[in-house]
């Protein structure tokens, strides 16, 4: 690895540690990393939207027109409409004409809600409804072995659970009597489902942390001491120790502050 690349990796490693330091408390390292990433990501996004959004979707479509004719002579002049609407959004920069920006927003929301109505009805209601109308495997009702997912009784439980869950979501009826009992079953099913999916996610989240350990270990620490690297020089471990020193220094500083404040009464946390 070249030294320049290693320096960049070192920066990545420092930023990684800076973010992890937030677990202890908000601190200057985290604040720096946070403000840096906000600026970088906003800039990145602006550039990407320019190059991959505006240029191909608008400029290239109008490029065969002439600016002094307001691109009206281009092959697809109708793309001037969204461009005009986009410019209308900028009336928000003025206090007096800001209300004009409501027009493009209204069109935006009108189009979005209009698209959503049939689409969501189809995907979330009609298709799920059709999916409940399935054949229960009566021949395999008791399934094979312990808690068989494919068994008939499991399918019946899915069906009953769905109905009970839906009943829980009734707004205009109090949860009393039989109705209340079914609604209660519904919320139990929801909670069991939520618990299961919480438990399932733990593994994926721990993996994310393992990957960060791997990054710090293999991509950074090992490289810093890799003498087989043809570009190896004393600067590699020097930068490793520099970062290590900063970390240790910060820990010592925090520890001293902790010792100083240990005997003082803690300020009441509101």
């Amino acid at each position, binding site marked *: 690895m070249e030294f320049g690349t290693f320096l960049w990796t070192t920066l990545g490693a420092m930023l990684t540690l800076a973010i992890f330091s937030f*677990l*202890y408390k908000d601190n200057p390292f985290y604040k720096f990393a946070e403000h840096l990433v906000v600026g970088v990501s906003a800039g990145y996004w602006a550039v990407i939207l320019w190059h991959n959004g505006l240029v191909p979707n608008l400029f290239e479509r109008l490029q065969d027109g002439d600016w002094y004719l307001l691109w009206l002579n281009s092959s697809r002049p109708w793309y001037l409409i969204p461009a005009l609407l986009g410019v209308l959004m900028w009336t928000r920069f003025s206090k007096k004409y800001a209300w004009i920006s409501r027009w493009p927003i209204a069109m935006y929301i009108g189009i979005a809600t209009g698209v959503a109505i049939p689409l969501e009805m189809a995907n979330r209601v009609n298709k799920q409804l059709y999916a409940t109308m399935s054949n229960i495997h009566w021949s395999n009702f008791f399934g094979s072995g312990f808690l068989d997912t494919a068994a008939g009784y499991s399918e019946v439980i899915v069906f009953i659970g769905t109905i009970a869950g839906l009943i829980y979501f009734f707004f205009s009826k109090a949860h009393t009597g039989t109705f209340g009992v079914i609604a209660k079953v519904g919320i139990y099913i929801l909670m069991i489902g939520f618990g299961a999916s919480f438990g399932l996610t*733990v*593994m994926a989240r*721990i*993996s994310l*942390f*393992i*990957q960060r*350990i791997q990054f710090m*270990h293999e991509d950074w620490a090992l490289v810093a001491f890799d003498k087989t690297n043809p570009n190896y020089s004393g600067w590699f471990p020097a930068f490793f120790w520099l970062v290590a020193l900063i970390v240790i220094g910060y820990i010592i500083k925090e520890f001293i502050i902790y010792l100083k404040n240990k005997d003082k009464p803690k300020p009441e*946390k509101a």
Partner: protein
Amino acid sequence: MTNKQDTNIFNRMMSIDRRWVFLLLIVVCVTAYFLPFSVPILVEPEVAVIHEFIDTLPPGSIVFLAIDYDPASLAELHPMTYALLEQCFRRNLRVMCTALHPNGPSMAEAAFLAVADSCRLDKTYNGEFFPAREVVNGVDYCFLGYKPYPALVILGMGTNFRLPFPSDYYGTPLDSIPLMKGVQNYDQTACVVNISGTSGTEYWISYGQGRFNFPLALGVTGVMGAEYYPYLNSGQVFGYMAGMLGAAQYEKLADNPGKAIIAMKVQLYAHFLIIFFIIIGNIGFFMDKFKKNREGR
């Protein structure tokens, strides 16, 4: 929090500062990552059957390895490839390999290089001693490389490997590769193992196994796990490994601990730690309630 000076042990158990949870989790994960101890791993039969199958092949048999993944799913799938390749070379089996994913060849090459390196050392697996050996390209393995249109390539190889791949990945004509002598199509291979992070698996099942009836084993990512599991029950696939769990099981079977087992070690102890904290919290909660009830009376 409501009582100022209520500092009995149960109350403390209920309100451990979360920073202790964080610190312990870091300690546990980092320790488990770096310390070389082992954990038992529950081996499922669908993984064991692959290991068993390859272990009992006569020396010189050809295992066909299809590597269809890219760096995105490398973490889960590389351990499978490594353990499987090492097992094959130690058992003196020969390996043919394709990569029908555009980014697959670099994955396959990395695996061959790393495993060839590892084979240069004497090792003992499952109590059996294996002397060091040199793994030679063209003799012990043949890497065919990448070609587009997986369905047609898989079908073509069913007639003759030389049709889609007149020469291997490094440009050597197949006819001048020692391993390929007398090898025409899948009939001369013992089995096909598809390690895949893409839908390319579908092609191996329907165009490969479906047409040419070779024994097919799958290694897939955890996300794809549930999707292809039914093929195991229908008998189209004889063995199945899914995700990091499957990879760790294979490493365990091969007695060749690698990254998957390390990851599982971390996972296991991290899970234990979380469960430990949940239990501590609940003990505190119940004992506190119990005590308050008694005091109340």
